[in-house]
């Protein structure tokens, strides 16, 4: 187990290294001088140089990469070109919207998908099964930002149950914040819940076809008992992988949904930064999200190895 852990840790470090190089180089090719941009047209050459020095823009490409990557490791994401405040502070504030939103959506998606998938699998071939599968077909095909707009129309504009957008802020109390995240979370969760329902159903059906289920049935367990006691736990492994992958889609997908609801999260930060050509902010947010994706997948892999010793031998 320890050997497996260190092997995975090494590959984690390599992925992070490669990702950071790609992101750094991608934004390195952008023409233009941020220092000139910040100071305007009439800046003196020596002021420009001083600012470049302060922003870490002087030096070779390797030096700049090392200082950027070193900064990331110590939580110093640099200074925003437009707001002149530390990027880390800007991201920190926004993270408190995006992260709860993603977690909320993941919770909803799980709460929908588990019962729906189990229900469909236990009534395989029935109208229930066909109905659940039909709904998931729609859920996968519907653009979630459009679904979000329709929900705003129905629940915010017509019924006035929710506000059409904006974020209450955690200072306003837990429930007020949760309420303003509810419609966005439902919109985000819908396609993910559909996919997860299908995974849950097919994984459970596969497990129900295994020999050990037949054994359980042969020794006298009912169909339901065999499913709850033996099949479900074994069917969860592929479901957990997909959940891990989905978390990253939720974080990234939030970028679009935040725009529908004018939520002050990472997504809106990125778009403001793109239109202001504030590339260091874009760079940091992208790196942060990629970091989250890689970490989540790493944790899922480890969780597997803990649950299922057979997986430790393989890559």
């Amino acid at each position: 187990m320890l050997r497996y852990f260190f092997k995975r840790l090494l590959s984690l470090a390599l992925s992070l290294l490669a990702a950071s190089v790609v992101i750094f180089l991608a934004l390195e090719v952008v023409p233009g001088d941020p220092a000139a941009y910040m100071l305007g047209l009439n800046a003196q050459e020596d002021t420009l140089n001083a600012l470049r020095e302060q922003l870490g823009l002087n030096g070779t490409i390797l030096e700049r990469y090392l200082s950027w990557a070193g900064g990331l490791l110590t939580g110093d994401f640099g200074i925003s070109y437009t707001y002149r405040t530390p990027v880390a502070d800007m991201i920190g504030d926004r993270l408190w919207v995006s992260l709860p939103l993603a977690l909320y959506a993941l919770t909803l998606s799980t709460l929908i998908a588990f019962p729906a998938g189990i229900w469909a699998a236990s009534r395989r071939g029935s109208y229930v099964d066909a109905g659940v599968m039909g709904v998931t077909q729609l859920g996968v095909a519907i653009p979630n930002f459009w679904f979000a707009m329709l929900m705003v129309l129905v629940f915010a504009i017509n019924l006035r149950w929710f506000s059409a957008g904006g974020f209450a802020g955690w200072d306003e109390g837990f429930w007020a914040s949760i309420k303003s995240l509810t419609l966005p979370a439902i919109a985000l969760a819908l396609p993910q819940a559909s996919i997860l329902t299908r995974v849950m159903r097919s994984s459970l059906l596969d497990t129900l076809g295994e020999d050990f289920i037949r054994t359980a049935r042969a020794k006298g367990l009912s169909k339901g008992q065999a499913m709850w006691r033996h099949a479900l736990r074994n069917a969860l492994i592929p479901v957990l992988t997909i959940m891990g992958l989905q978390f990253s889609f939720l974080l990234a997908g939030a970028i679009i949904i935040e725009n529908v609801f004018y939520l002050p999260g990472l997504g809106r930060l990125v778009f403001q930064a793109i239109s202001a050509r504030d590339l260091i902010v874009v760079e940091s947010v992208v790196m942060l999200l990629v970091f989250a994706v890689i970490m989540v997948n790493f944790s899922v892999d480890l969780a597997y190895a803990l649950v299922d010793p057979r997986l430790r031998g393989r890559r």
Partner: protein
Amino acid sequence: MNLLLQSRTLIPGAILTVIFAGAAIVSMFWVPYDTTVLDIANKIKSPSFAHPFGTDQFGRDILSMIMVGARTSIAVALVAVGIGMVAGVPLGLAAAARKGGLLDEFIMRMNDLVFAFPSLLIAVMITAVFGASALNAIIAIGIFNIPVFARLTRGAALSLWSRDYIMAARVAGKGSARISLEHILPNVSNLLIVQGTIQFSLGILAEAGLSYVGLGAQPPLASWGRMLADSQTMISFAPHLALFPGLAILLTVLGLNLLGDGLRDIFDPKLRRART
């Protein structure tokens, strides 16, 4: 024909796909109203006989906009799938031909790396660097398709390499490049077609999302995502502006997914259960 009817999803999927592909093709020669001409006198009209889907804030006919938008969506998604296949399939074939080799290892690591970037983030980075355009949306979606096809091809090819007829081809003196092209590729093509329809539908969703946030097609190019973005501020008094482009996306994606499911059932009945 009997086989065609066995799949319940193939026919409805094919019908929806043909409708939208047809609308896109027809729009190249004819649309009910010119979408580049503004008609302010007729702005934001509800659906009527003259304008079955109504008109937008500039008096443009929504039906015509949707037809032209179909062209944008389909073109972007099709080229993106093309990029994924053209780059991904050879990589997958090469990786499978030298399983466990340095090339295989390199290709699979690169794949993992691309997978760590959600496609939306790739698009965000590309637009941050090169600006927003339909072309950059294509590139962003296309890049994400490469590892999908590379991985699928490698997996399928690996299982073929252990077959007897491949061994026979080897004994006959064929090199691995020739075997890959002449024997492996034809046998994985069914899988590639099925995955192609699925990636196609994902591409349409991705294009719509990117255009919605302004990272995809730019005006005056009509695009379903942009139409939705424009309709958002008017949704309380003109919901039809948001309804029809959204339905167009939903039905196109649904059609492609059903078509993909149906094709898979026909090509390989064993896989029926496997798709999630």
